[in-house]
C-alpha cells in the first residue's frame, strides 16, 4: 500500500464541445476549449512549476512561477491564466524561463524560514518541491533584511512577525510560513463559500487574515478544512500532522456522518490515522469536506469507547465484563427463553442507519430468518419514512431523483424544511456555488437559516411559515401554478395520469387552497407565496431539496406528496438540474431502508405479503418467512409496556435519546427482559440494557454506505477493530449462537447475496465499486453503471400520480398553557444525538443546546441572553439556556438535540405521521419560563445514568 497521490492539474476542468490541439514541449495534446495552458501541459504529462495554482480554485496568476514561452507571443505569460488556442506552440522549459523562475524562488525563500527539517510539512510542501524543481541553490538577498520570519540576526524585535494562531482545535495558522499565494482565501470563497478569509494590507504587509484580523476560532471560519488542503506550505497545517508526522499510506473510504456520503482518503501511518483528506474523485463531494468528516474522527479512539462485551442480570446491577462467548451465550439464552415463554413475536431488532448495508441486511435477516418474525425497524422511522411512502406513491421509488452534480444545472432551487449549511454542509457548498453563479433560491422554513442571507447568497423569497403548516403552503404554491396556468401541460400529458391530474386540479384550484385563504394558518404573506410559485414554475430548471422539516410532522407524508406534485406540475423531473431530493440525515439511512429494515418490506421495498418475493428469500435463506408485517418501533414499545414484547437487539442507534417522548421509550425498555445494545459507547439506551456488545467504527470494517443520491460508496477497513470484531461479524456471532450457522467471511459475500435477491442491486459487486469508485442504484442489466438520474424516460411506477393534499392541522396546538411552538434542528459542528461529535474537539463550537427565542417573546417573559429557562410541554419539561434571536419568528422557539443533558425529546410528544408513524419532532406546543437550573427530571436522570454506567471491577 502506498500514499494515493492525486494529480493537481493546476486549474479547474473546462467544459466545451470544441477541442483545441496545442503542442507543448514537442508533445501534441487536445483539450476542451477554455482549458489553461497549465492544465493542457499536465494532461500531456508535463508539470509546469507553480505555487498559487491548484485545480480546486480558479487561476489567479500571482506567483509568477508558471511562466511559459509561447511562439509568436511576446513575453512570458503565466500558463495558469492563459487559455489554449488552436495550434499554439508552448515551451515550458527554456533558459530564460529557468532564470526567471529561479529569481522568483529566491525572493520567496528570502522571506521564508529555513527550518525544513523540523517543519510539519516536510515531505508534503510545494514550496520545497518548487525550490527543488527550479534548482534553487542560494539566496543572494540573504535573510537579514526585513522579513516576517521571527529569526532576526541582530536580536531586535520584529514588528512584522505574527505568532502562530492555534485557536482552531484541528489546525494551526503560522503567518511566518505564508507565501501569500491566496489559495486558502480562494478555497474559502470558491469551494466552501464562507468568505471567512482575506488578504489584509498591501505589499510587504500582506498576509492572510481570518475575519477582521481575528483568530480563526473567533472568525466566521467553519473549519471545513478547504484552506488547509489548499495551502502549499505548513502555514495552515493539521495539528494531527504536527503531532504525528507524514502519513505513509492511504485508503479511500466513505465518511460516516451525514447523508452526503463524502469520499475521503484516510491517510495512515501504520495503524495510526494521521488525517482524513477529501478525495477529489469522490462523486458526492468532489474533493470538499466539512468539519465533521474532515476532523471529527477522534471518537474512534476516545476513552469512553467500550471494547469488551458486558452483561448484567438486572438493569439496576453494575455491568460485568465477560468474554464474547459468555456474552453471546447469555444473550442467546435470554432470547430463546423469551421466545419459549411469550412466542415468536416477542423479540425484535432495530437496524442502524450508521452501519453498512451489509450489516443492516444481516440484522433484518436475523429477525426474519432466525427470530422468525418481521419485527425489524430502523431509525429512518423517525426521519425519512414519509419520503419512502410519499415518493413511492407518486413516482414509484422511495429515493431522491438526482445526483448532487445535478445542482450545477439548476436555475431555481427550492429548499423546504432543511438547513443544508448545518446539516449537509458539503452539499450546501455546492449549492452556494451555483447560487453565486446566478441561480435563484426560495426557502420555506420557520427559521431564518443561513441560506436566506449570508455573504454572496440571498434567497429571492423566504417563506417563514408557522411550524406544522407545510402542506398548506406547498398546496398554496400548487394552487397558484394551476390557477395562473403556469403548469407544464405537455409534461403532464406525456408522463402523468391525466385523469388523476384533473381530479387534483379540481381540488387544488379551490379557493380554500389559495395563498390568501391559508395566510391565517401559515402566517406567510400571500404575495410572497404567489411570487415564489411563479418563480419556481417559470424560472427554468427547478430543483427541490428538502429535509426533516418536511417529514417529521403529523402530515409528513402529505407534504412529500405535495412536493412531488409541485415537481410534476412544473415538469421538473427526469433530467439534470431538476428533481425531488430528500437530504438524508444519516450516512446510510438510504441504505438501511433499501436493505429491508422496515417491518413490512423485504430488501428492495417489496412488501412481505408478496409470496413471490418471500419465496426468493426463503430459497436463499432456507427458512420460511412470515407474511405478517412486524412491529414498528413505537408499537414495539407499546407491546413491551403491555407485556407481549420482551427482547430487542439494537444495533448502533440510541432510541432513548433520539426517539420522541423519552418517558414512553424508557417505560417500554424497562419492561423488557433482554435488551441487547450493540454500540461504540454506553449510550442512553444502554441504561436499560442487559447485554452490551461493543461495536466497531467505520474505520474498522469493510462494507458499503448508500448516500442521499442512492450512491453506493465503499467503506474500507483501515484499522483492526479495537473491539475485536466488525459489526457484521458480531451479528453473525449472535445469529450463530441462536443456531443459524451463517458463514460469511467477508462483506462482499453479503453484497453478493443482496445482489442475487434484490433487483435494484442486481449488478452491484465489490469489483464494480472498485472499478467505478461508486454506483447509484438501480444498477442492473439495463443500467450496468447505475442511474445518476431517475425517471428519465417515464416514472418507475408508469404514470406519475397526482394525489390530493388536504391540510389537516396537527393535534398539537398552542393554547394558554403552552402558547409557543417548539421546532428542532441541528448545528454544523454536532451530529445527531452527538454520540460521536461530543467526543471530539467539535464541542468548542457547541458546548450545549440552546433555546432560540424571539426578542419579543423573551421580553414578555423577562428573559435575557444566556438565562436558564424551563421548557415545558404536555409531555414533560427540561431546562436549558436561552439565546435571544430574531432568526425565529415571534411565537416560535428552536433548539438542537445534540446533548443528552438537555433531553429535548422529553418535551416532544408522541404524535406522528399518519402514514408512517414518523414522529412529529418539528412541532410541539411549549411554554418557556425563567428557571434556576436543571429540572428534576434532568437531575434524576443524570444520577440514574451514572448509576447505570457502573462497570464492576475485574476480579
Amino acid at each position, binding site marked *: 500500500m502506498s500514499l494515493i497521490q492525486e494529480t493537481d492539474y493546476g486549474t479547474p476542468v473546462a467544459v466545451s464541445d470544441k477541442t483545441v490541439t496545442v503542442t507543448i514541449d514537442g508533445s501534441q495534446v487536445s483539450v476542451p476549449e477554455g482549458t489553461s495552458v497549465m492544465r493542457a501541459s499536465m494532461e500531456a504529462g508535463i508539470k509546469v512549476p507553480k505555487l498559487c495554482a491548484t485545480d480546486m480554485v480558479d487561476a489567479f496568476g500571482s506567483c509568477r512561477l508558471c511562466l511559459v514561452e509561447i511562439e509568436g507571443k511576446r513575453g512570458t505569460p503565466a500558463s495558469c491564466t492563459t487559455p489554449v488556442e488552436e495550434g499554439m506552440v508552448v515551451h515550458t522549459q527554456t533558459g530564460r524561463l529557468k532564470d526567471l523562475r529561479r529569481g522568483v524562488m529566491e525572493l520567496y525563500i528570502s522571506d521564508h524560514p529555513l527550518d525544513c527539517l523540523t517543519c510539519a510539512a516536510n515531505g508534503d510542501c510545494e514550496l520545497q518541491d518548487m525550490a527543488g524543481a527550479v534548482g534553487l541553490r542560494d539566496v543572494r538577498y540573504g535573510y537579514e533584511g526585513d522579513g516576517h520570519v521571527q529569526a532576526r540576526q541582530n536580536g531586535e524585535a520584529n514588528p512584522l512577525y505574527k505568532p502562530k494562531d492555534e485557536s482552531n482545535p484541528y489546525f494551526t495558522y503560522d503567518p511566518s510560513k505564508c507565501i501569500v499565494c491566496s489559495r486558502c482565501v480562494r478555497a474559502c470563497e470558491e469551494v466552501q463559500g464562507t*468568505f471567512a478569509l*482575506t488578504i*489584509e494590507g*498591501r505589499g510587504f504587509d500582506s498576509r492572510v487574515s481570518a*475575519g477582521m484580523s481575528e483568530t480563526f476560532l473567533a472568525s*466566521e471560519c467553519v473549519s471545513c478544512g478547504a484552506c488547509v488542503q489548499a495551502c502549499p506550505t505548513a502555514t495552515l497545517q493539521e495539528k494531527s500532522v504536527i503531532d504525528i508526522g507524514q502519513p505513509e499510506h492511504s485508503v479511500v473510504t466513505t465518511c460516516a456522518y451525514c447523508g452526503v456520503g463524502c469520499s475521503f482518503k484516510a491517510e495512515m501511518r501504520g495503524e495510526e490515522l494521521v488525517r482524513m483528506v477529501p478525495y477529489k474523485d469522490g462523486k458526492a463531494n468532489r474533493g470538499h469536506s466539512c468539519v465533521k468528516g474532515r476532523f471529527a474522527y477522534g471518537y474512534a479512539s476516545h476513552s469512553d469507547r467500550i471494547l469488551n462485551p458486558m452483561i448484567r442480570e438486572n438493569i439496576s446491577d453494575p455491568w460485568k465484563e465477560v468474554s464474547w462467548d459468555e456474552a453471546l451465550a447469555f444473550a442467546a439464552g435470554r432470547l430463546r427463553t423469551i421466545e419459549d415463554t411469550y412466542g415468536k413475536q416477542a423479540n425484535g431488532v432495530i437496524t442502524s442507519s450508521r452501519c453498512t448495508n451489509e450489516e443492516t441486511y444481516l440484522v433484518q435477516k436475523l429477525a426474519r430468518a432466525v427470530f422468525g418474525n418481521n419485527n425489524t425497524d430502523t431509525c429512518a422511522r423517525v426521519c425519512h419514512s414519509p419520503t419512502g411512502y410519499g415518493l413511492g406513491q407518486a413516482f414509484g421509488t422511495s429515493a431522491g431523483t438526482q445526483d448532487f452534480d445535478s445542482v450545477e444545472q439548476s436555475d431555481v432551487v427550492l429548499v423546504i424544511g432543511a438547513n443544508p449549511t448545518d446539516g449537509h454542509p458539503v452539499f450546501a457548498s455546492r449549492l452556494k456555488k451555483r447560487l453565486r453563479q446566478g441561480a435563484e433560491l426560495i426557502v420555506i422554513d420557520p427559521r431564518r437559516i443561513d441560506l436566506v442571507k449570508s455573504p454572496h447568497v440571498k434567497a429571492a423569497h423566504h417563506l417563514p411559515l408557522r411550524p406544522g403548516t407545510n402542506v398548506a403552503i406547498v398546496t398554496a404554491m400548487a394552487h397558484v401554478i394551476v390557477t395562473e396556468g403556469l403548469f407544464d401541460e405537455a409534461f403532464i400529458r406525456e408522463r402523468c395520469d391525466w385523469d388523476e391530474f384533473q381530479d387534483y386540479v379540481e381540488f387544488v384550484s379551490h379557493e380554500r387552497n389559495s395563498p390568501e385563504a391559508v395566510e391565517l394558518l401559515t402566517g406567510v404573506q400571500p404575495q410572497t407565496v404567489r411570487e415564489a410559485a411563479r418563480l419556481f414554475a417559470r424560472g427554468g430548471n427547478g430543483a427541490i431539496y428538502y429535509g426533516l422539516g418536511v417529514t417529521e410532522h403529523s402530515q409528513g407524508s402529505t407534504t412529500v406528496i405535495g412536493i412531488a406534485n409541485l415537481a410534476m406540475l412544473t415538469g421538473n423531473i427526469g433530467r439534470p438540474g431538476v428533481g425531488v431530493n430528500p437530504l438524508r440525515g444519516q450516512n446510510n439511512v438510504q441504505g438501511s431502508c433499501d436493505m429491508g429494515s422496515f417491518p413490512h418490506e423485504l430488501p428492495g421495498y417489496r412488501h412481505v405479503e408478496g409470496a413471490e418475493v418471500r419465496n426468493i428469500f426463503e430459497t436463499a435463506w432456507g427458512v420460511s418467512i412470515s407474511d405478517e408485517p412486524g412491529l414498528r418501533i413505537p408499537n414495539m414499545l407499546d407491546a413491551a409496556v403491555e407485556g407481549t414484547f420482551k427482547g430487542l437487539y439494537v444495533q448502533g442507534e440510541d432510541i432513548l435519546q433520539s426517539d420522541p417522548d423519552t418517558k414512553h421509550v424508557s417505560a417500554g425498555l424497562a419492561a423488557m427482559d433482554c435488551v441487547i445494545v450493540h454500540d461504540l459507547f454506553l449510550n442512553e439506551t444502554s441504561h436499560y440494557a442487559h447485554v452490551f456488545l461493543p461495536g466497531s467504527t467505520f474505520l474498522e470494517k469493510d462494507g458499503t454506505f448508500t448516500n442521499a443520491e442512492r450512491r453506493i460508496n465503499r467503506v474500507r477497513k483501515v484499522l483492526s477493530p479495537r473491539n475485536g470484531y466488525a459489526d457484521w461479524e458480531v451479528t453473525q456471532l449472535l445469529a450463530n449462537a441462536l443456531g443459524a450457522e451463517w458463514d460469511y467471511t467477508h462483506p462482499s459475500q453479503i453484497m453478493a447475496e443482496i445482489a442475487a435477491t434484490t433487483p435494484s442491486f442486481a449488478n452491484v459487486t465489490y469489483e464494480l465499486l472498485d472499478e467505478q469508485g461508486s454506483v447509484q442504484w438501480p444498477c442492473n442489466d439495463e443500467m450496468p453503471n447505475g442511474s445518476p438520474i431517475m425517471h428519465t424516460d417515464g416514472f418507475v411506477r408508469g404514470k406519475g400520480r397526482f394525489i390530493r393534499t388536504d391540510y389537516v392541522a396537527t393535534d398539537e396546538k398552542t393554547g394558554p398553557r403552552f402558547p409557543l411552538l417548539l421546532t428542532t434542528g441541528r448545528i454544523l459542528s454536532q451530529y445527531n444525538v452527538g454520540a460521536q461529535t461530543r467526543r471530539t474537539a467539535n464541542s468548542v463550537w457547541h458546548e450545549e443546546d440552546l433555546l432560540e427565542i424571539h426578542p419579543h417573546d423573551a421580553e414578555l417573559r423577562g428573559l435575557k441572553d444566556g438565562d436558564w429557562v424551563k421548557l415545558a410541554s404536555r409531555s414533560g419539561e427540561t431546562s436549558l439556556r436561552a439565546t435571544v434571536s430574531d432568526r425565529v419568528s415571534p411565537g416560535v422557539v428552536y433548539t438542537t438535540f445534540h446533548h443528552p443533558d438537555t433531553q429535548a425529546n422529553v418535551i416532544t410528544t408522541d404524535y406522528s405521521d399518519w402514514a408512517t408513524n414518523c414522529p412529529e419532532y418539528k412541532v410541539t406546543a411549549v411554554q418557556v419560563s425563567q428557571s434556576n437550573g436543571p429540572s428534576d427530571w434532568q437531575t434524576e436522570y443524570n444520577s440514574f445514568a451514572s448509576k447505570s454506567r457502573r462497570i464492576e471491577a475485574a476480579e
Partner: protein
Amino acid sequence: MAGAMPMHEITERTAAIVDGYLHVEGPLLPILHDVQATFGHVPDAAVEKIADLLNLSRAEVHGVKSFYHDFQTSPAGHHVLKVCRAEACQAVGGDALGDAIQKALGLDWHETSADGTVTLEPVYCLGLCSCAPAVMLDGELRGRLKPRDAEALAAEVRR
C-alpha cells in the same frame, strides 16, 4: 470625536451612508470614503455593518479597507501631515526632513499626538517629485522643504 460615539450611532450613520450607494455598481470604495470622512476613521462596527448590508463577509470588507492606508482603523488627529518617503524625495534630503519633522512633533511614523492635534504619516510619493522633498498637510501640498522648516510646520499644526 468618533471614538466616543456610541455603537448604535456608528451603525445607524453607516447604514444611512450605505443606503445612498446601493444603486451604484461597486459601491464599497465610495462607501468607505464616506465613512472615513464621517468618522475620521473606519470603525470596526462600520465594517461589520457595511458587510451585512452589501451581503459581503466582514473579512472581505476588512481586506479592502486594510489595502488602503487612508482608511484608518483609529481616529486620526485634527491635522494630518503626510511626509513623502519615496525615492525622488530621498534623493534631495527627504530623510533628513523626515527626521526633523519627527523630532519637532515628537512623534514616530503613524503616531498621533496625545492631545489629538496631529497625526504623522509616511507616504510613498505624492506625485510632486519636481518639488521634492514634499509633504502634504491636510490635503495641501508643500514642496522644496528643508529640515529647518520642520519647526514652522510643527508650530502651524499646534496653533
